[in-house]
């Protein structure tokens, strides 16, 4: 898998099982414990209560595109972790680790964001970046 590849797709499923975050506005029961790693192109970053959310497109190996929507906590909590209203730009490529929902829909809760310029953002309850799968 080359960094220069233009295509964006699911890179792996990290089978390391982590416990669910303890803080939540809505609930933790909907989210799977498995950590997914996805690389995608940002379509929108919404800085709002009670959750901020990020939408992005992931190109699958068969060429189709899956539109994902993942949430974070509220702006107050996220700003304490270094996130801002302008953390993401539409069109930029990011790699994320996240917990998906148990029913398999492309919805989830972000854990770690890796930016192309080397920046890393951690979500609530994540004390160290989730490792990326070996290439």
């Amino acid at each position, binding site marked *: 898998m080359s960094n220069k590849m233009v295509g964006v797709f699911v890179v792996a499923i990290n089978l390391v099982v982590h416990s669910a975050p303890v803080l939540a506005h809505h609930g933790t029961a909907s989210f799977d414990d498995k950590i997914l790693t996805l690389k995608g192109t940002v379509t929108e970053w919404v800085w709002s209560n009670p959750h901020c959310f990020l939408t992005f497109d992931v190109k699958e190996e068969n060429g189709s595109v899956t539109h*994902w*929507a993942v949430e974070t906590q509220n702006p107050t909590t996220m700003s304490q972790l270094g996130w801002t209203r302008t953390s993401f730009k539409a069109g930029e490529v990011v790699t994320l680790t996240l917990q998906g929902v148990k029913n398999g829909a492309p919805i989830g809760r972000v854990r770690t964001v890796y930016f192309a310029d080397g920046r890393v953002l951690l979500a609530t309850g994540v004390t160290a970046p989730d490792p990326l799968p070996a290439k």
Partner: protein
Amino acid sequence: MRRRFIVPVINSVAALMCSLTCSSAVMLAQTWNSSGLPRDAFQPTQAKSDPAPRRDLTGTWDAGNAGIQGTGHVAAPVTPWGEERLKDIKPGNGPRAVTEEFINDPLSIMCDPAGFPRLVLYELRPTQIVQTPNQILMLYMFEKRWRVIWTDGRELPQNPDPRWYGYSVGRWEDDYTFVVQTIGMDDRTWLDNAGNPHSADMRVEERYHRRDRDTLELTVTINDPIAYTKAWTPHDKLPLKLMPPGTDLMEMICSPTEAAAYKKLVDTQKK
């Protein structure tokens, strides 16, 4: 002549130095959109704080992560009335948590008011306390909401109409401990994210003990014999730290429009 020249120069230099240092201090204190104290402010420290001022809670206070309580509290056992009420409550957290589609939390799903005491039992974010001659005002960052604690000696109302934030009176128990009694809360509200219920007859006591200049301890006791078999204490000496003067707080408001957009997005993604 020489002296007349030197003195103004010294004064000017002193004034300049003062203006530089004083303005720097003011600039440091005057930050916009603060989300709360940094986490290390809540680490144990050897530094000794100044003594608490007498009968004074004025300032902006932050409980840090300990004030958020995302999973709710461990309540006293409920009565049969409480058991019946719980049949209609579907929380997203705590021992009775259900999955997303079944949650009916009026705050997180509908953006209803948190109400009291949920406002101090969940998302107790930075809070400014203002004292007037006959009131203490609690200005909460979460919901950008306020409460009035009457200190003019009035009694609590008899058989009051329910209110989201109830009716509160307070008195100084000693020079450093302010005690608030609140009744008349709307029983549609939950106590916390775990969906612990309450009746309209609940009485809540808050004790604010100013331990020293920089620390305020909050103890909250729930007295609701209709819903619980005994009184219980969700906050026991929860420490709140004094924030710098000039702190400007963020807004933290559950907007129905934004919540609806979030729900629509999630529903769309599920299809």
